[in-house]
């Protein structure tokens, strides 16, 4: 009996390894293939015989992307929009998360639910009025306007995720500081924020990745090179040239490097935060 149980455990362990290796391969292969494409020479990309292991390498696609397609401007615009989005979320969202985490007050549950429900509103339904409003305020086609638009779906997410991290920070230290005469705001900035520092960073990274990746709002709300973000610019190249796969691959790789680096750095804390928020929600 014990024999069969341990042998069935072994079978399942092997099955688990097999599943994970296959899935891991499927998840990474598109990335590897795109990277390979981005360093292949044109004749090895457009070819009758598929080249799996290229012997000639080139950085030409990256050079051409950087020098000819205005990619540096697109990346810069994305950086500005992303930073502004994170700053707005930090300034308004962190104090909201703190309030939800530390105080009990009339309307708290309803308000928290409200912050969750706004995620259900269709982006398309908001995008059109936002387009009109932003045009009236002269915010259309500006990195700032786009960042404000991004807060529509990122701020509620930010508040919920950060609230989870604040909840996990012990309340005793804060009480001690209060007894020592610190004001509420003093305790918040000197005690709670430093304790929840990792969570704060992870939440910011999560929002930054989402803002960096965003496509639909950017497509609708930017109209010129002045504020266009890289996803829109990259997609436009599809029409501009005859499917320049090498360049598209190079653009894709450049643009996801920051995402992968950031993800790798804060992956563990961020995963904990996403799941904590969702479990409670």
């Amino acid at each position, binding site marked *: 009996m014990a024999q069969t149980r341990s042998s069935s455990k072994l079978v399942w362990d092997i099955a688990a*390894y097999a599943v994970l290796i296959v899935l891991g391969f499927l998840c990474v292969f598109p990335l590897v293939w795109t990277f390979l494409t981005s360093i292949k020479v044109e004749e090895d990309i457009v070819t009758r015989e598929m080249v799996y292991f290229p012997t000639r390498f080139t950085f030409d696609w990256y050079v051409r992307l950087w020098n000819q397609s205005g990619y540096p401007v697109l990346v810069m615009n994305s950086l500005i929009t992303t930073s502004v989005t994170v700053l707005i979320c930090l300034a308004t969202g962190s104090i909201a998360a703190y309030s939800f985490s530390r*105080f009990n007050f009339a309307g708290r549950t309803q308000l928290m639910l409200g912050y969750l429900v706004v995620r259900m509103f269709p*982006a398309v339904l908001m995008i059109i009025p936002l387009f009109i409003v932003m045009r009236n305020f002269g915010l259309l086609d500006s990195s700032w306007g786009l960042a404000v638009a991004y807060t529509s779906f990122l701020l509620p997410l930010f508040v919920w995720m950060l609230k989870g991290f604040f909840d996990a920070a012990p309340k005793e230290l804060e009480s001690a500081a209060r007894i020592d005469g610190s004001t509420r705001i003093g305790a918040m900035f000197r005690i709670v924020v430093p304790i929840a520092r990792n969570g704060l960073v992870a939440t910011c990274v999560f929002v930054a990745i989402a803002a960096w990746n965003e496509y639909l709002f950017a497509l609708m709300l930017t109209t010129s090179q002045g504020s266009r973000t890289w*996803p829109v610019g990259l997609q436009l190249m599809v029409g501009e040239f005859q499917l320049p796969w090498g360049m598209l691959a190079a653009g894709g790789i450049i643009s996801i490097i920051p995402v992968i680096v950031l993800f790798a750095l804060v992956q563990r804390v961020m995963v904990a935060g996403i799941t904590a928020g969702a479990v409670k929600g």
Partner: protein
Amino acid sequence: MSRVAAASPPPRSVWDSLNPVRLLGELSETRYWMYLLLLPSALLITAVVLYPTVYGFQMSFHEMRLNRPALGTGFVGLKHYARMVSDPIFWTSLVNTAAWVTSSIILEFLVGLIAALALNRNLPGTKVLAVLILIPYFLPNVVAGHMWALMLDPRLGVINDVLVRIGWLESYKAWFADPTTAMGAAIVVEVWHSFPFFTLLIMAGLKGIPADLYKAADIDGAGAFSQLRLITLPMLKTIIAAAVILRVIGLVNSPDLLLILTSGGPGRSTQVLSLYAFQTAYKDFNFGYAGALSVVMFVLLMGFAYIYIRLSKVNQD
């Protein structure tokens, strides 16, 4: 500093009564502090979410064509909604949305569950695999779309090459140009992109199931599949319900991936509601009709969420 102030309050100088740090400190001791903390974010959400949504509802009852200002922006009642009933593209989009959402959700859930169960065995060396498996979820739609478009390309797609080599295909196939395969191919990309979301949430849920339950089941001689059916899935019910709701919202609301992969084509074979609404606004500049389409989408989504939550609660009792 504040300790000294509490012990012997010094007389207030003019500077003190203007010192912003001190003012904020005092403000934080008032009864309304928690509301003040919420005020900035609540105002912002009102401005960028609630106001536009109300505006959008209202817009759906008005004529609003940016490219034909001569038509004005008068009230047209239910005109847009009436047009929808006799609009074949709307009905096609509705059917496609149902197919797109249900197939994607079922596959994402199954793959996500299998990955989570495998990762939850905590076998040596699988930590790295966990990171690799989560990566697709954090990649931009645009890049995910291009990667797969390249791999499925009718002339130089590596997937075509592999399938021909192992004999599953006679010759290279134009997956996104054939109305019978376009939706399927798009679903594959979507599942690749989003199944890690289920893995993430289910893994968190699995950690909360007490190990004793499985030990007891072992002693009773329950096999792996009955344990999954009788312990794991019931214990995960809430989290699965939450994950499904969140993914359905995402799938219904965001046309990004289909916009990048197919733009709704070929024909209307991958046209979904969100995409139709977006294109009506972005290409035709018919904001009134686009607004009506999004309102219908929103109402359907709310209806679904309501029924789904009711059903999953009924099941729990």
